[in-house]
């Protein structure tokens, strides 16, 4: 009997091979040997699974494929083909594919023909289903919106996520205070806190990312640490890092600003801009971070990574940042991820770098300009995919003349998030209702589209009131 692990290892290969077939079929004639042998290989993987499981259902939900109810994990070498297949599915609004009985090469051939030609149709999914009437052992389903059936339970999930988020912040605050007073801290607990964040991100990524959008806490330093950790884990997940690595990344991110414990609170929490001297003090925090981490933990594999990140997170991809070094350092992978998360969270708050917070979408477009210079351009692509073009908390005007706040980004359509409307189309304040920008009317036209973005800080709009 197949063990569950084997089934999942196989699932990864099914996705991979399906992508290979579609790629090859797009450039070769269906009868070409390259295509037929790819199909044969595919069938050889799928059929044993059909025999043991009855049928094989592959479903695209958000950015991930599922086999039945379980998400198919992949590692980076599979990413090109996963990514390709996701795009090909989305283009056709196709969400699932089901294989049953015994799959034959002819079934795959006919499917490929309609699948490839459907891209030219105005309603591609319908074109596929029509063309597939006479295929017995293969069927497709339309792209479903994720969790549309779960609206009722959502309130509770939000509560759980919120609790988890505040636990992490409160834990971080406790730890930093302990460190300041010279007490020993247990890394076991830190690990547990990060592990529960990793779980949350695997399951409720968007909700947890939403928690990072609120910026006006008094003790922002602790929130900043947790936010950077969350954003880094979420980015790491997109890169296919495994759970254990995500934990390490999250842990390292949580302590990236450790060096700030040596900066006097008067400077750290200063409401006005820094003097040159104060800036120079601030710029020492990478050094102090290395020192604090190594003093606290000594050497082990995690503390080595943490010290490196503490030192490098302001150096920048093009080495334009600080501290300067004798020889340019080849930046650590974690440093690159964490400095993206750090910049984003820092820019959108009023306490980290600048005293004037930037609206999230502005921060994002600024970061886009920096991609390739200060920021790693490839990782930035992943970052924007994760956070959406209009990140949570962005104040937006819709073409329906409704004004609202981005509430949750949509994993499929980056520019079509869910929006919490706070002023209706008559210009009246309302209690807040959520609209989904992916919704279409009967003619296939979107009901609402974002036309403008604005700075919520300028109008003293309190996000917490709406999002918490």
């Amino acid at each position, binding site marked *: 009997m197949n063990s569950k692990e084997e089934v999942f290892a196989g699932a990864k290969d099914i996705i991979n091979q399906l992508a290979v077939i579609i790629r090859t079929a797009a450039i070769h004639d269906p009868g070409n040997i390259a295509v037929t042998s790819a199909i044969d290989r595919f069938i050889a993987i799928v059929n044993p699974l059909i025999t043991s499981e009855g049928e094989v259902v592959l479903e695209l939900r958000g950015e991930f494929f599922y086999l039945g109810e379980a998400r198919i994990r992949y590692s980076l070498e599979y990413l090109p083909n996963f990514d390709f297949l996701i795009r090909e599915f989305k283009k056709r609004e196709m969400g699932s594919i089901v294989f049953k009985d015994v799959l034959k090469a002819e079934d795959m051939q006919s499917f490929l023909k309609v699948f490839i030609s459907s891209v030219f149709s105005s309603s591609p999914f319908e074109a596929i289903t029509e063309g597939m009437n006479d295929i017995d052992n293969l069927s497709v389903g339309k792209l479903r919106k994720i969790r549309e059936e779960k609206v009722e339970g959502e309130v509770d999930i939000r509560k759980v996520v919120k609790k988890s988020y505040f636990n992490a912040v409160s834990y971080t605050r406790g730890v930093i205070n302990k460190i300041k007073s010279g007490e020993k801290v247990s890394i076991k607990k830190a690990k547990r806190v990060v592990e529960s964040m990793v*779980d949350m991100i695997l399951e409720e990524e968007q909700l947890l990312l939403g928690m990072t959008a609120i910026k006006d806490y008094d003790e922002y330093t602790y929130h900043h640490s947790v936010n950077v950790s969350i954003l880094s884990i979420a980015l790491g997940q997109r890169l296919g890092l495994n759970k254990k690595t995500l934990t390490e990344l999250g842990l390292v991110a949580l302590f990236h600003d450790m060096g700030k414990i040596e900066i006097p609170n008067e400077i750290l929490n200063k409401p006005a801009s820094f003097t040159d001297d104060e800036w120079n003090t601030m710029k020492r925090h990478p050094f102090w971070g290395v020192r604090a981490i190594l003093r606290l933990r000594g050497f082990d594999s995690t503390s080595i990574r943490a010290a490196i990140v503490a030192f490098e997170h302001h150096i920048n991809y093009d080495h334009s940042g600080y*501290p300067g070094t004798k020889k340019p350092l080849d930046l650590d992978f974690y440093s690159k991820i964490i400095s993206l998360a750090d910049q984003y969270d820092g820019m959108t708050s009023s306490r980290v770098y600048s005293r004037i917070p930037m609206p999230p979408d502005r921060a994002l477009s600024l970061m886009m300009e920096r991609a390739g210079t200060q920021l790693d351009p490839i990782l930035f692509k992943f970052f924007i995919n994760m956070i959406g073009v209009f990140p949570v908390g962005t104040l937006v005007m819709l073409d329906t003349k409704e004004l609202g706040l981005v509430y949750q980004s949509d994993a499929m359509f980056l520019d079509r998030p869910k929006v919490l409307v706070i002023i209706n189309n008559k210009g009246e304040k309302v209690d807040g209702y959520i609209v989904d920008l992916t919704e279409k009317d009967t003619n296939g036209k979107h009901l609402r589209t974002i036309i403008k973005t604005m700075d919520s800080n300028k109008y003293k709009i309190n996000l917490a009131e709406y999002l918490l």
Partner: protein
Amino acid sequence: MELLDDIKAAKDVINALMKAKKAFRMYPENNPMYAKTIEDTYAKFGSFFDYRDDLTLKIKQNEIFCDTEQVYFNQQKEDNLALFFFKDGLREISFKKGFSIQELEEFLKILTVDYDREVLDDDVVTLLWERDFHNIRYVVDEAFLVEDEDYEVEAVREVKDKAVETDELTRAYEDAFKEEGVKDISIVPLSDKDLHMLVKELEKNNYNKMDKLLTIIFEMLYQADSKGDYEDVVHFLNDAIEYSMKHGDLETTTNIIKRTKETVDDPAISGEAKKYLNLVFSFLGSDTAIKLLGEFLDSGIEIEDRIFADYLKFLDKNAIQPFITILGELKSIPARKNVINALIALGKKDIQSLAKGLYDSRWYVVRNIIYIIGKIGDKKAVEYLLKTVNHGDIRVRKEVIKALGELGTQNVLQTLRDCLDDSDWQVRTSAARALGNVRSAAAKSIILRKVLDQDFRKNDFNEKKEFYEILSHWKDNDVVEFLMKTLKSRSFFNRATNDENRACAAYCLGLMGNKDALPLLYKARESNNKLLREYSYTAIKRIEHEQ
């Protein structure tokens, strides 16, 4: 009241787990008891799954429940399975039918980890989480992780309170009509090249990161501006050495010290900084560092000769004493061999420190030190060695005599000659062998004189034979003459003893391949004495064969 069958089966599972927890600590994986423990425990799970599809255990501080039935109770702190789970926040654990024997083994390993070890950063929940068991589910209460229970409520209230009475929503709404429209943010899809680069980056992510951290630590040195900064750097470098030593990674240790050396040699570095960096070199040879080396040498980790030699180059003479200390503690032969090689290399720098090892209370250490001094071949070492000639342990004496012979200076002869008169035959033969190694004319005459000695002639045959054998090193006339004379000699008293000596002479002449001796040997072969006959016969064969 009778227990229900399924509850009984659940109790059996718990008992089996308790038993397995003990057994896993006792037996290594290759012990048959290890496999049997797994099988027995698995059978108990199997029996439970005959009744139900999943076994859910609710965990309290001192109790475990299956449904509402208590299946475990223990108020003690020691060996309390309930508490073991409970303390890390585990409140429920369930095993699903389909739980495989491999999963059980992994699970039992988690039960047996020594969580109190300081270096371990994992608790039970972390390990369960990392393993991602398909057929084990669990519920945890994270409350104990929370530092401040009220934080959530306070923080939320605080941010919400910041809302100004009259936010300017209406103004925002009006402004919105004046704002520019959104620019189309197009997301460039990932190219294959992007992904290829990422894959490479990820590969690099698994490399050893110590080198990078070292670069950073040296960077800290270059930018240091206080004594405290220098002290930190030294401290971290020492820690890094300790860390790599603990992991048996001598190559990294050597790399750390190499880079320290490069930095010391950098003209840009200040004298002050150099002074501090030199502390790192002394740490490398400190008791702490050498002890760690000893631990991993003894653990059987193999070290390439090249790496070990590279490492040795950076050690200074302060390492000699710590090496002598561990030499007496190491259990494995290859480990001791490495330490001996290290001491041979280091001892050259400071024979005096090495010689202190001759006063070690452990005879085997003294013997090793003698061997080491002998290998170094420093003539100055003789005076230290001479002091151990009268050591209480015969094994030491034998070694020192041998070493003295190898050193072969004029001043050892007297001592070696005295040893020829020792009451212990082992000492006497060792001394003779040592003299044989010296090969000088003086050494020769000492032995010659000895074998001529009337008392010596009465010694045991094997000892005498040994002495004669040593004489064969000198193929000089006086030796040959002496041997021939001995072979010819006749005695009416003590004839047996005399024949022994003749046999020895025959033996020696044979070894020397002296054909002039053949006539005498032919004659001796006809002797009534069996010993003489045999030895003459062998000698003849040997000489004739060589011709």
